[in-house]
């Protein structure tokens, strides 16, 4: 499933909404998650999962092709942890 298919399904379920509003709704959800993480915040969606930011310390990496040592600066990366309900559903425990 891709973004446009998700928008399509939700538009079909909500015939009283304009397609452009459904697009705005779906885009707002994803944009808010990115903006929250860009501020260093966490987004916890019970049953689905949680998006958070993790710090990666500076390290000396290697250029895999040449084997040269390269300094990699400390950085922050997005992280997602699956929620319990979704994890259970993936393994056939619907309830």
């Amino acid at each position, binding site marked *: 499933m891709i973004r446009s298919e998700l928008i399509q399904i*939700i538009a079909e379920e909500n015939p009283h909404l304009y397609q452009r509003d459904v697009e705005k*709704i779906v885009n*707002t959800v*994803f944009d*808010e998650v990115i903006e929250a993480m860009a501020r260093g915040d966490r987004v916890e969606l019970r049953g*689905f*999962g949680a998006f958070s930011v993790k710090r990666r310390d500076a390290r000396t990496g290697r250029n895999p092709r040449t084997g040269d040592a390269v300094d990699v600066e400390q950085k922050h990366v997005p992280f997602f942890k699956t929620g319990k309900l979704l994890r259970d559903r*993936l393994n056939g425990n619907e309830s």
Partner: protein
Amino acid sequence: MNAKTLTRMDLSEAVFREVGLSRNESAQLVESVLGHISDALVRGEQVKISSFGTFSVRDKAARVGRNPKTGEEVPIHPRRVLTFRPSHLMKERVAAGNRD
């Protein structure tokens, strides 16, 4: 950096602000977005949201684990796990926003 935790409520508040539906309907639509993503994943589909990231389901084989406290061997059954791969845009925005 004092990190806040956002919830569904904050997402539906954003939808309410952006689109001008009722708070109630905004909340239902946020739920519907999460629900459809979950349903697709449970069917085994990959969910690819451009400029956000990709959720995919992977099969893990059975293995023998160990209770770290007692050292006892426990069988770990084959299972399906969800992985999320953030888009370049998300990685860039998160890295840029959290530089210190």
